[in-house]
């Protein structure tokens, strides 16, 4: 029996379990049952799910087992996934954290969901999102310390993957909503290039900043998910120029990259996060990475302010009608975002867009010198549950639309720290290859205390 086969199925990454499924050493139904049992054992503590589709998932698993010889070539055959509860699903409610929509079934699948199902993936359920993917604290807890936030807004997706309730989950990021919760929960997340994954059927927070993306426990699983999700979609015009690659091939033989370490981020990090990051960077250097110290010309707070301004104006407009009907039903921070976003003068919105353009040129110039940029993923470790954390370090990559990934780099105060890696537009293959190399060099985090 292989090592993978000796582990409980819930403990395996998607790729590890998929190998067993393809060899018929693991039945899809047994994999799903193991995950449902894990959810039952841990959910009262973690609270990662809005709805677990146990009957639907098990029914689909049995169908896939029965038709295995016909479906075996599907890239996600039997892979269970969690969906952030802003992804429309034809058969489950999509509430986006809004109480009036708790029972609202949208009756169609988001393009990303459609692609997952067509690839053989099994929807295990809907994971908790902060209301409308903004910043009101959710019920979900950080599996590393139940008194800390898992981060947001893809709170349930990150916490569910971290606590081995599901190997893979989909989230979305407008400022830092994939990378920050993944880092706070000690797992990996990918925010791809803007326009690489269709946003069709995903409830928007801010059109020009919204990025769907996966959360997982290995780079291989991120590459697997991206290989299914990436590509143009006639229902989302921003994907018209999407450039895809063979992401799984790209990570097979990763080489030591040249990294640009952006010192500005270290200046704003807590001492614990700074130290973990410097230790990780030293390990990468010893393993053969070339390092260059870089500085931003545009101050980090200005970059974050431009992102915030654009997000706030777009969110206010998206919610104008619903807010007029049901302002009292909004969570406090989301309501304030809308009501103050509606007051921003157009001249300052345009100024923020101009800063965005200039910063994009600045990032392109930095990336002309190195393969990838590295920073801590967040300025801090997961704070208490009255906040979803600090988005300053992730917002720059959302603002300019370049891809970024977070890989666990160590612990501070007993909580995970992430290393954030960013690359140029459409360079996910290079980014995932670099992340795979980093994943091999850095020691894994200790076992989750749950």
């Amino acid at each position: 029996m292989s090592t993978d086969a000796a582990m409980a199925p819930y403990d395996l990454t998607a790729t590890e379990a998929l190998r067993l499924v393809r060899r018929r050493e693991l039945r899809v139904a047994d994999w799903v049952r193991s995950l449902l049992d894990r959810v039952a054992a841990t959910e009262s503590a973690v609270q990662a799910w809005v709805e677990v589709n146990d009957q639907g998932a098990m029914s689909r698993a049995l169908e896939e087992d029965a038709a295995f010889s016909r479906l075996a070539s599907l890239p996600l055959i039997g892979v269970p996934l969690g969906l952030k509860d802003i992804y429309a699903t034809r058969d489950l409610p999509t509430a986006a954290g809004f109480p009036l929509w708790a029972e609202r079934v949208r009756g169609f699948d988001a393009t990303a969901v459609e692609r997952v199902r067509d690839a053989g993936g099994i929807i295990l359920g809907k994971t908790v999102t902060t209301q409308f993917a903004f910043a009101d604290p959710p019920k979900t807890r950080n599996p590393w310390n139940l008194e800390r936030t898992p981060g947001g807004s893809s709170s349930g997706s990150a916490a569910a993957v971290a606590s081995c309730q599901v190997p893979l989950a989909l989230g979305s990021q407008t400022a830092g909503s994939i990378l920050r919760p993944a880092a706070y929960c000690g797992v990996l997340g990918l925010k791809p290039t803007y326009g690489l994954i269709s946003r069709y059927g995903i409830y928007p927070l801010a059109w020009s900043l919204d990025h769907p993306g996966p959360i997982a426990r290995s780079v291989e699983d991120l590459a697997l998910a991206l290989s299914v999700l990436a590509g143009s979609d006639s229902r989302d015009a921003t994907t018209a120029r999407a450039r895809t690659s063979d992401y799984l091939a790209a990570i097979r033989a990763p080489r030591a990259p040249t990294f640009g370490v952006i010192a500005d981020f270290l200046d704003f990090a807590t001492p614990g996060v700074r130290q973990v990051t410097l230790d990780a960077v030293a390990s990468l250097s010893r393993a053969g990475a070339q390092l260059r110290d870089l500085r931003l010309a545009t101050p980090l707070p200005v970059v974050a302010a431009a992102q915030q301004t654009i997000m706030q104006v777009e969110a206010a407009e998206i919610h104008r009608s619903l807010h007029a009907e049901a302002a009292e039903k909004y969570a406090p921070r989301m309501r304030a975002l809308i009501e103050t976003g509606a007051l921003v003068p157009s001249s300052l919105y345009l100024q923020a867009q101009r800063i965005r353009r200039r910063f994009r040129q600045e990032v392109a110039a930095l990336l002309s010198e190195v393969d990838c940029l590295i920073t801590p993923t967040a300025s801090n470790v997961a704070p208490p549950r009255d906040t979803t954390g600090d988005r300053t370090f992730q917002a720059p990559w959302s603002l300019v639309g370049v891809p970024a990934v977070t890989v666990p780099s160590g612990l501070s105060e007993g909580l995970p720290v992430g290393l954030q890696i960013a690359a140029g537009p459409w360079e996910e293959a290079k980014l995932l290859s670099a992340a795979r190399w980093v994943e091999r060099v850095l020691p894994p985090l200790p076992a989750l205390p749950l």
Partner: protein
Amino acid sequence: MNADSVILAIAADLAAASERRWGSERTRALAGAIETLAETLALVANVDLELDDAEPDFIGCG
């Protein structure tokens, strides 16, 4: 104007706009959010850009 003056001026404009749009009660409730937004917008407003070298760009990735 120094940075604090810019924040105060923007906050005053936002509060006036809020009074007109949402009324006094909501404006009082939004006081903290208005102050935070004024600080954010002041950072944006204080950046010196030439029109020629930084035209607006509305889509995430060029």
